[in-house]
């Protein structure tokens, strides 16, 4: 039921301005959401929900029991109820039950990509205990971003300086290598997480590498890439293929690992609940990467950042 006018928020979460990227990754859902909630109880008649929408100029009403979210009644649900003569029925009987929610600790990028990804126009926000904490709409995001961008532009205008010169890869290294690639990662950028590894896989396929070797390299690379996205403040994934050896170097700028031995133990994880809800944070990342490689080294300390190096040997053509 997507509107004829696209509801997409025209902000690119992939490329684009570094300033805008920094903003949408540093702002949290809780900084943006509306906390004054207009809700209804499950036994409220739809007629009452309709009145709530009209009186408050809103297009969706969360149906709650205490602070627990049961569902949401949207304009679409209301129209269906009117069509079917169910306007006197309870909200519980007419609401949408399969509700996509956000958590308040998620970065704003999640809200932006959810709006672009799902047809829903609003997302209820839950706190870490699963209680309803707020609601977020495209208008909330646009308002907050405009204010934040204005502030940022003013700050930048005050400190305009020449851009730093881009780093140039070592030419002599590159001449010998069959492959040399490098990708940046950003914290919580789950939309692009895995892209570096997918590129590595593609490149290894082009080199006609053995499928088992490609699979091992892809696994090691993906786990290290996801670790950067989940745990670090951003980093670089580097790949070098040379002389029968694939080298994967994952280097990030912090915060570093306090207990390296624990981090290498299967099942140990410091990921929070919403990261776990995405299927990550099982404490298998580093152990998987280590198992996939022939050699593994990890150098990390709190405040310094982490560098992980995995190498995989492959047979050179005779």
């Amino acid at each position: 039921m997507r509107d004829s006018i696209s509801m997409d928020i025209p902000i690119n979460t992939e490329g684009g301005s570094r300033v805008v990227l920094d903003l949408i990754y540093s702002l949290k859902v809780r900084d943006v959401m509306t906390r004054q909630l207009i809700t209804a109880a499950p036994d409220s008649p739809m007629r009452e929900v309709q009145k709530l929408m009209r009186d408050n100029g809103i297009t969706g009403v969360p149906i709650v029991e205490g602070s627990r979210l049961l569902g949401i009644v949207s304009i679409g649900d209301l129209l269906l109820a009117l069509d079917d003569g169910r306007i006197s029925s309870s909200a519980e009987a007419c609401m949408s039950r399969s509700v996509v929610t956000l958590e308040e600790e998620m970065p704003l990028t999640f809200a932006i990509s959810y709006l672009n990804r799902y047809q829903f126009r609003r997302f209820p926000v839950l706190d870490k205990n699963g209680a309803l904490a707020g609601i977020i709409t495209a208008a909330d995001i646009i308002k907050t971003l405009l204010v934040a961008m204005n502030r940022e532009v003013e700050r930048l205008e005050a400190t305009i300086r020449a851009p730093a010169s881009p780093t140039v890869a070592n030419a002599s290294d590159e001449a010998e290598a069959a492959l040399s690639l490098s990708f940046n990662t950003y914290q919580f950028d789950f939309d692009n997480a895995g892209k570096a590894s997918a590129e590595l896989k593609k490149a290894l396929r082009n080199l006609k590498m053995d499928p088992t070797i490609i699979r091992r390299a892809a696994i090691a690379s993906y786990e290290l890439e996801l670790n950067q996205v989940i745990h670090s403040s951003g980093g670089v994934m580097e790949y070098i293929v040379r002389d029968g050896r694939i080298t994967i170097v994952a280097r990030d700028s912090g915060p570093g690992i306090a207990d390296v031995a624990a981090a290498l133990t299967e099942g140990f994880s410091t990921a929070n609940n919403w990261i776990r809800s995405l299927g990550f944070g099982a404490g298998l990342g580093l152990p998987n990467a280590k198992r996939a490689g022939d050699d593994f080294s990890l150098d990390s300390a709190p405040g310094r950042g982490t560098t992980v190096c995995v190498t995989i040997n492959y047979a050179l053509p005779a």
Partner: protein
Amino acid sequence: MKTSDLAGHFGLETIQAEFTDAEISAGYTSDLLSDVMGKAGDSDVLITIQAHKNTVAVAGLVGIGSVIICNARPIPDDMIASAREEGIALFRTPLSQFEVSGQLYAVLHGLSAIPRSDAPVANRA
């Protein structure tokens, strides 16, 4: 059985039909992507409730050719788009991971015929 045999059976709704048809020898049931990464085989069908595009990325990297999303979870458009790009089949069912795994196991091990979609199925929704 092949990927194309899944369509129209087990109560599955085909969400993304542009895939490379391949032999399915086993399934892997998990919602933890690192677990899938480390343990799933490359001719497995992945049975999960994890409906987002990182699931497709993991499937692509380990060589899984088809994904079944359980409990009728909403599937985001960008997940469908990246499955199409990777040539990975995407199905959805109202059944739970337990029900789908059980039915698929029975068929793959010759314990039962492929259940038809119009057969009554337990629906917890």
